[in-house]
Structures are given as C-alpha cells and as structure tokens.
C-alpha cells in the first residue's frame, strides 16, 4: 500500500509525514520547503505501508520544478490512495486542487489541517457535508499537535483497499458539453498515457503544455484547437481561463454549502505583523532581529567553547604527551584526539545554538517577511524576493539552499540564486567566523564580515545578472503565511536532524582529516602540500603551514578550522597568527570553493559546466577579497 500526501504549499504535508514516519522531512513555515519527494516505510496499527511526501503544488498545472515533481509522481500512477492535505483556514482556494485531484480519478481522502486556525478565522466547517459533496472521506486535523493523525491514516488505509473514487464536480452545461465531446476523442491517448479521459480532455482544453505536446496526432490537435476556440468565443476569454474560472466558481459553491462564516478574531499577531512588515519600521526590526540573533548565538557558543577547549587542553592533550615521542601510534592518536576535540570544542558550541535559532525563525514564519522586505534590494541586483528563501536557507547549509532554487520559475533565476547561495556563510563557515574572528578579534568584527558578505553577494548578483541573458521575469508572487508559535518538539527534531548530518557525516571526516594530517606530518608530507599552496599563502601573507588546511577545507569547511589548530600546533591561534592573518584566513575560507557536498548539489541542479564556473568564480572572489582586506587592514593599521 502506498499513501501519497498531496497539497498546496505550506499546508502541512511534511508535518503529517513526520508525525508517522519519524522526523525525516524538514518543515518550515514558508511555502516550498519540500522540493523533492520523500518516502518512508511505516508500521502503523499493525499495517505496513509506504508514505510519500510530495512538494507542495497549487494545482496540477505545473509552473515550477517542485510542482512538476509532484505532478509527474502522480502521473506515474503508483499511488494507491492520495491524502489531499488542505489548509482549512483557506478552504475555498485549496478546494481547487481537490477538484483537480477528483478529476484525476484517484482514491482520495481530504485532510482538513489547521482546524484551529480556521476556527480563529470564524470558519465553521461542516465536514460531513463536505464529505458528501465531494464523495470522499474528510478528516479534521491539527497536524502540529498530532490531533486527527490516527484517524486520517486509518481512513486512508481503508480507502486504499476499497479504491473508491470521489465524485466528479461538474462544470456549467456548455463547458461540460465541450469536455464530453473532447473526452470521446482522446480515449486512445488517455489509455496510452494512463490518465482518465476526462482529466486529459480538461487539461487539453486548458492548453497544458506537456499534455498538448504529448498529442502526436495532427487531427486531434486541430480538434482540440476548435473546441478551445469554441469555449473562448462563448466566454470572451482564453479557454484556460474559462476552465479556471469554472473551477473557482465550483470551489466557492462547495465552500458556501459546507461552511458557515462567522466573525474572525482580531489577533495580536496581525498587529505585530503590520509593524514587522512596515515599510520603514520593518527594516529597523529586521536589523534588531539579526543583531540579536547573532549575539545570542555567539554568547552561547563562547560560553560553551571556552570550558570545552580548556578541558581538552588540560586533560587530553597532556595525556598523550606521556607517550614516547614521535611514534606513529602517538601521531595517529594525537590526530584522533584533535579531530574529536575540534568537533566537540569548536564546532558544536556554535552549531547547536545557531541551528536551534534557525529552526525557531523558520517555524515562526519570519522568513517570508524577510523576503518581502528584501525584494526591492534583490530587484536591484537582478533577482526577486523569492530568491531570498534559498539565500537564507544557505545560512544553515548550502546544499538545501541550492536544492530549494527549484521553487524559482526561470532557469536564469535558478542559476543566479544557486551561484549566490554558495557564497552564503553556512553553519560550518559560521563556526569558523565565530571560532576565529569573533573569538580572537571581537563579535563586531564578525558582524562586519556578515555585512561584507552581503555586499559581495549583492555586487556579484549585479555583475552576473548583467552577463546572463534576461529571461521574461515573472516577478515575485509569494504567499506570506501567518505566524505560528514554533513547537519545541519540531524545533528540536529539526535541529537534531541537521546536527545528525554533522555528527554522522562531518565529524568522522574531521577526525579522519586530523589523522591524515598527523600522518602527513609524521612522514613530513604536509610540507609538500604546503609548498603546493605556497603561492597562494604567500600572496595572502599567511603562514605556510595553513596551506594544507585550505586543501582539506574543501571536504568540509569545519576541517579548515580544526586542522588550523592542529597544523599550527596550538589551540590559541593568536600566538602564531596576527589578527590580520586570522581575518585574511577567515575571509578566504568564507568565500573560496564550496565544500564537496555543495559542489555535488550544484552539479545536480546546474550541470557540470556551470558548477566548474562557480567553483573558479569562488576562488577568484576569495583571493580578491582576502587580499584586499589584508592590504586595507595593513595600510590603515587597524589592529596595531
């Protein structure tokens, strides 16, 4: 049995998925968090079934890549039953997707999520009436709280077994006549494509690009055209608009039959929102917010880092020095301990508070507000507000950031945004900025690095948008969902999911890297690598031993930091590097070649050629920025 979750963006599909499959899908309070489908095997009330979480889609007409994923999955016909997750507080609009799913003729369960939100809006939904109108079971849910989930899946399992289809929602008489006429003509094609004839007929009348191009028969194309023209002549607008207007009307009728609209409560959050989105004050709050966020994370991190580092210095490292000098075993052990210590002492103290903070911000729903406020500036650098979502996700990790560019409509926007995302300091690079610049130079210097980074990204955006051909810009059309109080459980699960990636993937790599460096040192091979990078370290006026850390940093950015301490044989970097050098090193690692995982993600989304271009670009930018900052700092004698 395969149960598939389908719904409009931000309707809570991933939340439901996580409730039954364990926390696997990252959820947030903004549209487009899920861009590829996720599968989970579930053992639920003694039944084993598969559950698939599809990216949000407003309709079965696909406009962006994430929506296309959903539609293609449904067209494959592998779903036994579909759970249509609906945000009950915007029921009328959501029903338009439901109507299309009914046309698709698949066993369906309607899940009314956000029932609490609907009640706040004064919507009194009669779900049994709704169920009888649509001919499908309707289950009320509050997914975040786990309310209604059991009943939802019991119902879905039952529907998957009986395979009962819902009712067809009929269009007006004249439109229905045209649909029926076309239906009889597409029977062969529909069985070839394995979609219901009625669904196919409607899609062809809507002039759906993909289905139209699936029609190879010239005669049929001509007939589709005639029928489209008949519709548009009679209604005075293009046929696709005739169909969508009909759907709006049907959705509204169903809504009016099944829902009593009462008085909506005026909520505090609406008042807060008018402040946070205010055209002047909004920016003030945004700045205060970012400043506060940054300082809280740094304070927590520093508070944790200092005792942890001194613990390792005082206890672990001296233990090793009792061992006979310069044996291979000692070198390996030293590398192992340094890798371990680097993970616990330097990376985790900043990573954990940062990721918790990020999760809270995501779930609150502040990100789409930031997108709104930043849209006008992004316009100036050739992008639009929706690109802010990948860019902000980039602060967590560049990989999901690059993947989320799929929510953008044009290929150009995807390329620009993915390229710029790789320049965003991810959590790994944040630990470097915090662990080096904030720790040794001061938190405000670190804040300046973030500002500089934004300026560089903006300048690059401007430059790149000049050289890439302008596509027809659709411009930003983005839903701004209401604020939610983040659930502690979800925030912690999400943080854990992301930390697990560090513990499982990055940490072993850090330890391995440290051991490899120890071995290189033992056989004096590190000097060879350092020599190889020495032209670069010389230009940037960095100590030659850091060369090797820059090479390893490509594997994982944290490695550059952990290995730096090891290569310089100290945990107090300031004894061997000047503040200028620390700044140069941080700036270089911030901008240069993204880590391997990011390169792989870029390759998947953009192809090998563009990935190569991006990699070279980062190298040039990093060298330029690091060199310039070094020159300026030396010239102005800032640190002396």
């Amino acid at each position, binding site marked *: 049995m395969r149960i598939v979750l389908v719904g409009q963006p931000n309707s809570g599909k991933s939340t439901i998925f996580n409730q039954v499959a364990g926390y696997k899908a990252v959820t947030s309070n903004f549209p487009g968090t899920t861009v590829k489908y996720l599968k989970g095997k579930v053992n639920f009330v003694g039944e084993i079934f598969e559950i698939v979480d599809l990216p949000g889609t407003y309709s079965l007409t696909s406009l962006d890549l994430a929506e296309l994923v959903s539609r293609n999955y449904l067209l494959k016909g592998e779903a036994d039953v579909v759970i249509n997750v609906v945000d009950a507080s915007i029921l009328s609009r959501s029903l338009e997707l439901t109507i299309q799913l009914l046309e698709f003729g698949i066993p369906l369960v309607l899940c009314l999520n956000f029932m609490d939100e609907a009640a706040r809006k004064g919507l009194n939904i009669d779900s049994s009436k709704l169920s009888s109108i649509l001919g499908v079971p309707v289950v009320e849910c509050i997914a975040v709280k786990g309310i209604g989930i059991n009943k939802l899946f019991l119902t879905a399992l039952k529907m998957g077994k009986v395979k009962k289809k819902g009712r067809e929602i009929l269009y007006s008489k004249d439109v229905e006549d045209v649909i029926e006429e076309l239906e009889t003509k597409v029977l062969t094609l529909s069985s070839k494509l394995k979609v219901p004839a009625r669904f196919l007929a409607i899609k062809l009348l809507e002039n759906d690009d993909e289905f139209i191009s699936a029609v190879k028969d010239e005669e049929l194309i001509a007939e589709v055209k005639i029928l489209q023209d008949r519709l548009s002549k009679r209604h005075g607008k293009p046929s696709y608009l005739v169909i969508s207007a009909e759907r709006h009307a049907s959705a509204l009728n169903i809504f009016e039959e099944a829902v009593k609209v009462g008085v909506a409560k005026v909520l505090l959050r609406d008042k807060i929102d008018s402040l946070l989105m205010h055209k002047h004050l909004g920016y003030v709050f945004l700045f205060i917010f970012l400043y506060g966020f940054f300082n809280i994370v740094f304070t927590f991190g520093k508070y944790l880092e200092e005792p942890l580092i001194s613990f390792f210095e005082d206890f672990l490292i001296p233990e090793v020095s009792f061992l006979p000098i310069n044996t291979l075993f000692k070198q390996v052990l030293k590398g192992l301990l340094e890798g371990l210590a680097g993970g616990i002492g330097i990376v985790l103290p900043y990573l954990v508070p940062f990721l918790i903070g990020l999760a809270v911000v995501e779930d609150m729903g502040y990100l789409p507000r930031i997108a709104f406020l930043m849209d*006008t500036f992004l316009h100036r650098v050739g992008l639009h507000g929706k690109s802010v979502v990948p860019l902000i996700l980039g602060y967590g990790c560049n990989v999901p950031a690059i993947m989320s560019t799929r929510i953008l409509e044009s290929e150009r926007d995807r390329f620009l945004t993915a390229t710029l995302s790789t320049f965003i300091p991810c959590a790994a690079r944040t630990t470097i900025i915090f662990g080096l610049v904030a720790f040794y130079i001061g938190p405000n210097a670190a804040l300046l690095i973030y500002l500089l980074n934004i300026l560089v990204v903006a300048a690059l955006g401007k430059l790149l948008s000049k050289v890439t051909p302008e596509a027809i810009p659709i411009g930003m059309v983005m839903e701004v969902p209401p604020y939610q109080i983040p659930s502690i459980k979800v925030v912690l699960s999400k943080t854990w999911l992301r930390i697990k990636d560090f513990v499982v993937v990055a940490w072993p790599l850090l330890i391995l890297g440290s051991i490899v460096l120890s071995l290189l040192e033992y056989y004096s091979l590190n000097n060879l690598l350092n020599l190889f990078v020495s032209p670069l370290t010389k230009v940037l006026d960095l100590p030659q031993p850091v060369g090797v850390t820059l090479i390893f940093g490509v594997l994982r950015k944290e490695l550059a930091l952990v290995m730096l301490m090891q290569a310089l044989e100290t945990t107090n970097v300031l004894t061997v590097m000047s503040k200028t050098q620390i700044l140069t090193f941080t700036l270089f690692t911030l901008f240069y070649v993204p880590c391997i995982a990011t390169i792989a993600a870029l390759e998947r989304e953009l192809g090998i050629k563009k990935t190569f271009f991006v990699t070279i670009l980062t190298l040039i930018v990093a060298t330029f920025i690091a060199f310039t900052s070094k020159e300026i700092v030396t010239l102005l004698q800032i640190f002396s």
Partner: protein
Amino acid sequence: MVSLDKAPLGVKVKVVDILGGKGIIQRLNELGIFPGTCVTVLQSGILRGPLLVSVGGRNVALSRGVAKKIIVEVYK
C-alpha cells in the same frame, strides 16, 4: 480603474482584469487573485518595493511589476 500598485492602502478593491502572459495569470489565479475577487493592499514597500496584499484571508507578496499588471476598480 487603476493598476493595483496605485490602489489606496487598506481599502478593498475589486480585480477587473489581469494583463500579461499565461504563467503569471495562472499563478495569481492559484493564489485566488482573478477577475471578480476583492483584494486589499496592506503594505507598500519603500523604494518601489513589493506590495503585501490580503486575498481570501491570506496575505500574498507581489512585486511591483506584477501589481502593475493587475487592474482593479476602487469603490468611492
């Protein structure tokens, strides 16, 4: 009749027409903005920034370029 970016703040206006291609019309349609619906402009960003529009009980951010294509009727 004016384009949505010229509509007064906080006043319900009725969408009369949407200019532009199929892509933009469909996207707006899906979010509930189509001829016949009422929308309210809640905020208008500085420096020709985007508009925040309330439609069907949900807020939607529209860049100014998009808003220019939405023709609305303002009731006096």
